[in-house]
């Protein structure tokens, strides 16, 4: 099995590859460093980056291979993945005004890839190596098994603690009905629904904490929480919006990526055939 990291010679792609490296080390997978040649990237820089990752991989005893592709990046990567026994693709993304527009990561998130996809947005260059606390924001109790598997793997790989941050959306009228007693009862119910995941984290030896919030705006609440806590990584579930939805509103993931205070991974589970 392989873990694939798309590398382009930039700092952010090096860091995305570092997350891939730690993930690969946990399962003793081979790490494929993949680059699609294009006029924007310098081959020399890409090779320097790859060499640095290979050097780091020695410490984690991870086998590395280099792949250079040609052509339109997204289809080229998709074609490569179809003929490879890969588990997950890590790629970095850059900060844009409209975040996902025309970026490789955006295109990859919309393609039906045969592997899971982890898009890494780097806010802090130095934070990856010291990942000790991971934030997993979810809407109420909505946590898929695949996302749980990915988060627990990353947490295990870094030896990090995880916090599930369960957000219940509430407008003014609902907030007016929720006194402290009712709010606590609501959170307790969510805790009960998440208890099987909590047991999973415990079995894996990953320290877990579940926190709750009522919020009018999910993204603002997450950013607020990030600012008042010490997290080095946030993992969010990727959402694929239809063309129409994309037209009428900005993807909340894109907003979160744009304003995040910490390194953030958007996880897109592979779509089953």
């Amino acid at each position, binding site marked *: 099995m392989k873990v694939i990291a798309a590398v382009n010679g*930039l*700092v*952010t792609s090096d860091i995305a590859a570092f997350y891939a490296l730690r993930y690969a080390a946990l399962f003793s997978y081979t790490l494929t460093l993949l680059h699609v040649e294009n006029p924007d990237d310098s081959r020399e820089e890409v090779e320097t980056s790859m060499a640095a990752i290979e050097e780091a991989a020695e410490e984690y005893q991870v086998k590395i291979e280099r792949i250079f592709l040609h052509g339109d990046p997204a289809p080229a990567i998709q074609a490569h993945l179809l003929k490879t026994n890969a588990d997950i693709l890590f790629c*970095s993304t*850059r*900060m*844009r005004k409209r975040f996902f527009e025309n970026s490789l990561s955006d295109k990859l998130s919309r393609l039906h890839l045969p592997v899971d996809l982890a898009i890494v947005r*780097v*806010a*802090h*260059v*130095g934070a990856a*190596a*010291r990942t000790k606390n991971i934030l997993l924001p979810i809407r109420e109790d909505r946590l898929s098994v695949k996302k749980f598997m990915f988060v627990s793997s990353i947490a295990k790989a870094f030896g990090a603690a995880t916090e599930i941050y369960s957000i219940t959306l509430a407008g*003014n*009228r609902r*907030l*007016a009905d929720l*006194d*402290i007693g009712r709010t606590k009862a609501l959170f307790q119910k969510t805790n009960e629904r998440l208890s099987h995941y909590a047991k999973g984290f415990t079995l894996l030896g990953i320290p877990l904490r579940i926190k709750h*919030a*009522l*919020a*009018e*705006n999910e*993204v*603002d*609440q997450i*950013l*607020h929480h*990030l*600012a*008042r806590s*010490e997290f080095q990584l946030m993992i969010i579930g990727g959402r694929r919006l239809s063309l129409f939805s994309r037209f009428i509103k900005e993807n909340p993931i894109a*907003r979160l990526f*744009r*304003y*995040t*205070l*910490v390194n953030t991974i958007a996880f897109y589970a592979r779509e089953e055939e």
Partner: protein
Amino acid sequence: MQLFALEKKALLHQLKSSENGLSSALVARRLREFGPNVLERAAEKNYFLAYCGQYTQFFAILLEVAALLSFIANAYLPGQGSDMLGYAILGAVIINATFTFWQEYRVDKAMEALLKLIPTLVSVKRHGEVLQIQAEELVPGDIMLLEEGDKVAADGILLAANSLYLNLASLNGESAPAFRTTEPSKASRPLEAKNMIFAGTTVVSGSGVAVASATGNATEFGKIASLTKNVRATLTPMQREIIHITRILTVIAVLMGCVFFVLGFFSGKGILMASIFALSLIVANVPEGLLPTITLSLSLASQRMARRNALIKNLDSVETLGRATVICTDKTGTLTRNEMTLKLIWLAGGEEVNISGEGYREPGEFSFDQQNESTESRLVALLTAGLLNCRATIDEVCLRGDPTELAIVSAARKKGVGVPEEMKKVQEFIFTSDRKMMSSLYQEGDKSLLFAKGAVEVLLPKCTTFLAADGSEQPLSESKRQEALARASIFENQAFRVLLIARGQKQEEDLTLMGIVAIMDLPRSEVYEAMTTCKAAGIRTMMITGDNPRTAAAIARQIGMDFDRVITGLELEGVRDEELEQMLVAETVLFARMASNQKLRIATALQNNGEVVAMTGDGVNDAPALKKADLGIAMGLSGTEVAKEAADMVLLDDNFSSIVIAIEEGRTVYFNIKKFVTYILSSNVPEIVPYILQFFLMIPLPLSVIQILSIDLGTDMLPGLALGSEKPEKNIMNRPPVSRDEKILDWEVFKRGYFFLGIIEASSAMVAFLSFLLLHGWQYGTADLADPFLHRQAMTMTLLGAVSCQLLNAWTMRSWEFSAFSLGFLSNRLMLLAMAVELVWVWALLNVAAVQKVFNTAHVPFGDLWILLPFPVILFLSHEGYKWLGRRGGTE
């Protein structure tokens, strides 16, 4: 490994940078990777949409449907005045929406204030050249050049530093300059790393070169900015109230409307007439003037509070104040004067000197416990040494410098000590939190003299001699050393800040101990009384201070603040959130040595316990806690712009007593709102009952919809506002706080408004209407009057029946539980004005043709108005009796 733990080479390698900086191509790519170095708002409010949203609230939708039906009715039956009614209802909707919007959506300027701390231009090194660039173009890996006075634009790690000191107050509240070094740090968090510089901070002195490690929102300053943004996860009690009131009244209005629509339809009135009848009932049930009255009343209250040194920025906060159950207060400047006073001096010869006069400018006397020939000269020498080692100055106009130094300068002024002209300052070794001392080197002729002051534990080991009672310098024996330590300990136990003063030659070694000074920021004289008021009012007060536990506890005792235990910031770090919540339920805690960011945790824990928290703050890093608290209170004199913008209330005099005064005002507002809600609901009944009676009895229509609006948006408004500005009731600060979940619109309000006072008013209106008709020849059973003028006169009587009762209702409603006679006739002049205006309005309804045309009224002969007299008197006396029974039974 953390970036700040790396050696220079590894660090630059990790950031893919070099000492010559980034190339232009790399900068462009980094800018795309990380984005511009700006603090961005996550959610920009669309004020237009927010305003439009006001038209989708319960009340608004009801009234909009009513207006629509009026226009439809006008299309089918033109000339009945339905179009006028439609416009009037739409007018009511617009007034309501505008007032509510004004109250809810104020421009949040905290972010703008924060942005002022970020520079616009920065010096960087790129491809070997020094450039001035826009701060927003800065990217991770850029080499930043720092000079004295520069504002830092991004987080970075130092590559070179020359005596570099930063002011980190915006991040940690510490005003003392923080020394920076290039040594890789072993700290666990960036803020603790001494080789890091941070966005939003300022270079106090020295210079340096740093590589940018984080920009924009990812900086430590970006975290504060994120916390300062509005994240509304709770509603203010007032917002809850408005939703609650709106919901209940909407349900009543819709239910009644539906029931009477069905009844009307099946009684053969036809769909159109049944609809108009139903909408008339809905309009009668909706108190159109309530929301504007609440807003105006809060606005008037905020003006009164501003006159008492509490500037309200968010109108809802006025009512929240009344519900405050905990005040978390700073010590310095709020409980104390924020003027350090040198009270005691221990001279190394063994004498103790007591100094009178508080603050910086008050004159004072020196009294000695024992005295000999050289005492006076040694005291002068010590004060001179202190003065020569101070940067602070006091002149007739202003005070400059550190408060501790100002205390020394002030003491020297009291003694008439000045700086000797022959002394020339050569060098100064500044105070830092690491060194805990400072010294100044002077030249007097060819002689060098060094004066030092600092913490006893730091300076005493550097002393080898002391200034003895005979004025000579004697070797410092162990017993003298112990005597000095014991004296310092005694001073510290009395909550004094203790400084040792010494002199020497050129070095900060082999010093001569001159004495120890004890300085204190004395409590404000009025705080003790305010604290007693808080206790009587059931409000807990908790001190959260950066000062040491001993000083904090001593001040708390002096001002009568109760506390069960003292917790330091370090101890708090080891306490889990759940434990903290439990602790705060059971105990009143005094928090000492707190970092500002810990205030946020305390506020959250208290709120999770159901407390309504008022929190004071002054620093940039207090802004998140001020936002989080139910009521953020910033200091007007000493507070930063960011804190003031983040707060709900600004204390113009920084005085704790002003908070207590504001709480009293807040409680008054709560009960005043209760009074005028009851008052406004009372007039709903005489608006509803005529419609119901007309439905069931064979009588003409007693009141038109436009007349209902003339009460709700006309005659009720000014007395309502007058009730809103009623003075505090005499026991207002002897009751426990109103709980977070207690509603203004409770059963008592309904009972008094609808079922007691409202019924009397409805009786008044109907008796006036029917009596007038009967007196003028009408016979029961004639629903359609042949004489429209007589009908208008009768409707005018109904209107006057309700308005006359409301006149005396307003007067008796001035107190919720005490007699109106005990309040004083002139104590609420706005009420007198309101009643005068109402009388003029009644006159206009009876006599001014234009008014009569709009409100469908007519002149009524004076001789017929006697019918109106009994009911207002009955209402007044009944309510006074009701309150008397309440007082007697102790049910209030």
